């Protein structure tokens, strides 16, 4: 089954921590410890809602921000997206303390490197969430680390009190409203050999860090980033699943993967954010074009039009036939 073994949890706490971000605490229904995990991990939350009178299932990845050694609960934070396809609105508007959810086992696609000599962590906005758990793994260890955290304005600085209390001077804040920008060139240039850089935040920030590091001679193995793309909204389109012999209509606000799942066909997945490559599916025929939105395929692979990541990518045109 594509969800693997899911875990039934209930919401035991909800807190509005910034104008846009809610912080959720989840506990196993019936009690007991949740699976151990490593800093940087995410869980996929299965939300069973409805739209226009018919059932609608959302599966969104959220980073675990709670300390990996505290397993009575998991904590996640969800930013309310203006153009939500439904997932973040479900989390913000529909959940109450006591609501039930299903979650998949944690997966880490943004792991700390265990042989790094120093960890340089850079977060923008809601990108702080995986880094909070990474900091817990680093705290008290022998390897130096520092966090550079950029937000729009002080009221948007989620978890700042917790960070200040625990990490003190290892946290440096940058507020857009005061014109404070991270000097990526200067910051990366002064790092000692053996430093690994980790960045999570808006696409522009991630790309700046990657480009600056590469231009400065950093090895790819020392540059880490995570950006879950929400599946973009687009025009409705049709696909045909060749092995299942089913036609599937993909709604504008539905991802291709969600549409395939609602047709009763299972596709293995891990991240649902275009990162891991697990849901890669062969395209047998395309009359029109594929709209690739993933971070996994190379540009050359995307141009070949023979494979797609249905978690985030879409199509436009008359007919697309998938090897499913």
């Amino acid at each position: 089954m594509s969800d693997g073994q899911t875990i039934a949890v209930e919401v035991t706490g909800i807190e509005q921590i910034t104008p846009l971000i809610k912080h959720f605490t989840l506990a196993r229904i019936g009690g007991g410890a949740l699976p151990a995990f490593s800093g940087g991990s995410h869980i996929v939350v299965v939300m069973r809602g409805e739209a226009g009178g018919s059932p609608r299932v959302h599966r969104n990845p959220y980073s675990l921000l709670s300390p990996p050694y505290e397993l009575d609960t998991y904590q996640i934070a969800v930013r309310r997206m203006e153009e939500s396809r439904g997932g973040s609105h479900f989390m913000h508007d529909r959940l109450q303390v006591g609501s039930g959810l299903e979650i998949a086992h944690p997966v880490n696609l943004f792991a700390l490197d265990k042989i790094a000599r120093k960890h340089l962590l850079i977060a923008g906005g809601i990108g702080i969430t995986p880094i909070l758990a990474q900091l817990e793994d680093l705290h008290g260890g022998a390897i130096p680390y520092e966090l550079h955290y950029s937000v729009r304005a002080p009221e948007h600085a989620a978890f700042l009190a917790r960070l200040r209390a625990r990490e003190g001077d290892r946290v440096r804040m940058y507020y857009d409203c005061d014109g404070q920008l991270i000097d990526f060139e200067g910051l990366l240039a002064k790092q000692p050999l053996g430093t690994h850089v980790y960045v999570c935040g808006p696409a522009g920030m991630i790309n700046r860090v990657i480009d600056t590091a590469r231009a400065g001679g950093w090895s790819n193995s020392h540059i880490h980033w995570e950006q879950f793309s929400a599946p973009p909204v687009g025009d409705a389109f049709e696909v045909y699943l060749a092995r299942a012999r089913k036609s599937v209509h993909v709604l504008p606000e539905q991802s291709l993967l969600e549409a395939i799942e609602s047709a009763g066909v299972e596709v293995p997945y891990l991240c649902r954010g275009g990162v891991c490559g697990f849901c890669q599916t062969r395209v047998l025929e395309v009359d029109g074009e594929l709209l690739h939105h993933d971070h996994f395929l190379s540009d050359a692979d995307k141009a070949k039009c023979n494979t797609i990541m249905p978690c985030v990518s879409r199509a436009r045109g008359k007919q697309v036939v998938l090897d499913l």
Partner: protein
Amino acid sequence: MSTVFKPDESFRDDFTFRNSPQAIRRFPLPFPEDEYMYSVNIEPHLPGPPGSVTEFAIDIDEHYVAECKERAIVLAGEPLRFQALPHMLSAQWDCLELIMESLARDYPAHFSLAKQGNRWHWINRPLQIDQSFTFGDVATLPQPPLEYITRQTPGDWVVMDQRDGDLWAEAGMVTTQADWSLDFDVGMRFNEWHGPVPLAHELHVFDRALKFLLNLRLGAPVRRLNWTMTINPRLDTAPENYPKWGPDRTKVTAQNAGELAHLRVELQALWRLPRSNGIVFSIRCYLIAVQELATIPKWARRVHRVLKNLHPALVDYKGLTRYRDAVVEWLAPHDDGSPTTSGTAPE
């Protein structure tokens, strides 16, 4: 099924190791068909039928106590059979937890684990061990956590760190290996470690296996079978000790092959580790004398055909060159040419 341990059987010197009739019937024959070639034969490590070697995550059988004694003998002479690089400590604790929880859950008559926060109490009745310790504090155990628990666990254990899109073998306990060396391989990445295997690289077996394993999920372990042959029931065939066991290969004749030659099957299982995000690779060795497996007529026919038609490169790689023909000759009278049913069940 209550297991009766055979604590005094040996895997060296006088080689008193034998399989009981029950152990023969549950032997994990790796040949579902009459011919063999590599494949990425990975499947979910789900519970198998009661009494089978895959009924539980980690199999404890009649050889358990003797195998732990054999491991202690190897380690006394060659302590580097256990190694762990410094950054693998959290993965060591992950392994200890995985093994203790599995054994205590699946064999409550033999093992128990009680936890009060980080204060753990472990009891291993077959080995008469009673240990209280603090999870996460190495000073509270007599050995490093992985060494401590794998001295009490059958099979070899290799722990891999995941970084830079690869898996690095950086800790392990290896005393029951088919001619490979942890001391040589420690620190290698996945394709380096598997470098000597013939044919498989051309078939891209390791590229596909690596891609699969990088996405291995927590709570969803996988397994596969691998095999070779060994002369005498010798668990420890390490390359460092080749002079001790290599010459045995010259002693096999068509007359004694049934007694001397053993099929050596590895039940390999892989788990994602939670705190370290590493992967542990367990390589559990099962030995069976050719004359033991020939007590099951279907298996005698099947193994005769597999060995007779084995690809020459695999004959060499598996080290069978000197005695394969003798084993085939010994098995020939047991193969009347009648068809075998597919699958590995004894019939």
